[in-house]
């Protein structure tokens, strides 16, 4: 609870002095690592940044269902099919938590979905890459979920309470998904030569896009400084990217797979891995809508929404008819 903010007089915001007092209280709460809650005063820019970030996070969960759902009907064993279905279901659930968190900031899910569908809000660029083989499902679990966890664990301590709490729940499930992805790749790596090659090919295609998930380099990241000051973000893009590389290298070794970077090597002096340059042109292209699947992903999402309009309308009409409760939606 942001008690420092709560304690400011209720009408203090009406005067310029009062506004400044609110701001000081907010800054003090953030500095003291207190959580900001929905009814607390917060700077407009803080609110706007959070709406943007949480909404894009929610959109990523929803769009992120597509590349994996692409393999549900083709999963090669019933056990793997069950795991994949459960995972994609979790992602829809994460999307729902996150839209709820965003709604505490005074926006609505419908409005956010409209922004997604019209391209005014983005989702993670990683989901614009295609899943071409079954091994991609494993590579997404290991690398994409791994990168997401590296990014998201610090968000569990984010200054905005509803977001931080959503992240605690999400991170638990994500780390489960990540282990499943790793285990899937391990089974392939130790399988037939064809399976091993399939796993290596998937890692070769997903490695660099996963590194791009941490965002542009610190020198070009437009929101970073302010987000860190507000304790929405706790670490810079490059710090998190480095941490991820250092985690992945030994994991790749135990998987028996290589990472597609000839410059990747241990740097004794830094105590970290050096790695090769990221193709930021590709990153910007994908972000600008020109990645391999941008068009397909958005089109599919829009189509699901448009084709489902009559269902939502019918449910609303039914609810309106039966609000007095004589029959209807609450009966079993």
């Amino acid at each position, binding site marked *: 609870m942001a008690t420092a903010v709560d304690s400011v007089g209720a009408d203090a915001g009406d005067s310029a002095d009062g506004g400044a007092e609110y701001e000081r209280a907010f800054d003090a709460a953030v500095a003291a690592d207190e959580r900001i809650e929905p009814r607390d005063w917060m700077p407009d820019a803080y609110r706007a940044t959070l709406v943007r970030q949480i909404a894009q996070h929610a959109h990523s969960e*929803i769009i992120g*269902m*597509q590349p994996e*759902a692409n393999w*549900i*009907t*083709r*999963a*090669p*064993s*019933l*056990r*793997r*099919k*069950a795991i994949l*279905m*459960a995972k*994609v*279901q979790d992602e*829809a*659930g994460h*999307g*729902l938590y996150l*839209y709820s968190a965003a709604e505490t900031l005074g926006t609505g899910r419908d409005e956010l979905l409209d922004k997604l569908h019209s391209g005014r809000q983005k989702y993670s660029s990683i989901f614009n890459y295609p899943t071409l083989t*079954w091994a991609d499902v494993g590579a997404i679990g290991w690398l994409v979920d791994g990168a997401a966890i590296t990014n998201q664990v610090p968000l569990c301590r984010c200054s905005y309470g509803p977001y931080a709490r959503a992240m605690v729940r999400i991170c638990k499930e994500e780390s489960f998904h990540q282990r499943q992805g790793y285990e899937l790749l391990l*089974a*392939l790596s130790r*399988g*037939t030569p*064809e*399976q091993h090659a399939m796993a290596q090919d998937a890692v070769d295609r997903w490695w660099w896009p996963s590194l791009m998930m941490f965002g542009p380099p610190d020198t070009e990241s437009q929101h970073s400084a302010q987000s860190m000051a507000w304790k929405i973000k706790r670490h810079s893009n490059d710090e998190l990217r480095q941490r991820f590389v250092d985690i992945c290298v030994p994991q790749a070794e135990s998987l028996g797979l290589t990472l597609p970077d000839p410059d990747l090597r241990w740097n004794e002096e830094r105590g970290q891995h050096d790695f090769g340059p990221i193709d930021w042109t590709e990153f910007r292209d994908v972000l600008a809508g020109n990645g391999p699947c941008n068009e397909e992903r958005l089109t*599919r999402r829009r*189509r*699901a*929404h448009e*084709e*489902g*309009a*009559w*269902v*939502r*309308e*019918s*449910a*609303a*009409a*039914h*609810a309106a*008819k*039966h609000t007095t409760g004589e*029959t*209807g*939606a609450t009966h*079993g």
Partner: protein
Amino acid sequence: MTTTPRSGTRAPSRDAVLTAAALALGDDALVLSHRLGEWVGHAPVLEEEVALSNIALDLLGQARVLLSMAGDEDELAFLREERAFRNLQLVEQPNGDFAHTIARQLYFSTYQYLLHTELAAGDGPLAPLAGKAVKEVAYHRDHAEQWTLRLGDGTDTGHTRMQRAVDALWRYTGEMFQPVEGLDVDWPDLETSWLERITQVLGRATLTVPGSPRTGAWAAGAGRQGLHTESFGRMLAEMQHLHRSHPGAAW
């Protein structure tokens, strides 16, 4: 390892009967689960992404237990040809629009609920499984009934589409009550209970109970004999292709 039951000259053993029954019910769950899995990423509202995949996952869980009673679950799922599958034709019907999916769910989950309730009350080898499944299926039936009401008694469009779906799938409902050997069930009684429940739900949803025959030109029970509809082969081709492309591989 036991695979598909073969019709032999000898009378089938008790094990063979159980295998055939487990296969019939396991195939129902497997095939419907697969169809629901096709919805993922296409649902009309996010809550339905969760609900449909949840139901699909329950059914897949049931299928795995049942197929494992009959043999190796993956061999049975991925290496049998279309003619060896014993599922009802109802569950293999394409998803169609949301109303078709809901009508299929309504018909099947009502049947499955009644069947599992009866099996769970008996002392047959499937009783423990049915006891667990009935809890899941109660939720599936509730989900289907709620949506039948929302679509049937919502907008005009919803009503028209729901009625169309209810009508279109009606002819696949007769085969559900063809006795499955090895299941100690009062089939005519099951059918009566099913019709009562369906009539009641459709009535509350302001829909008309179809007056058309409940079987198509195929004899009722065709699916149980391995006679399927055309779209089923394509569904299996998709489901099985990866597994079949890597003979003997472990996943």
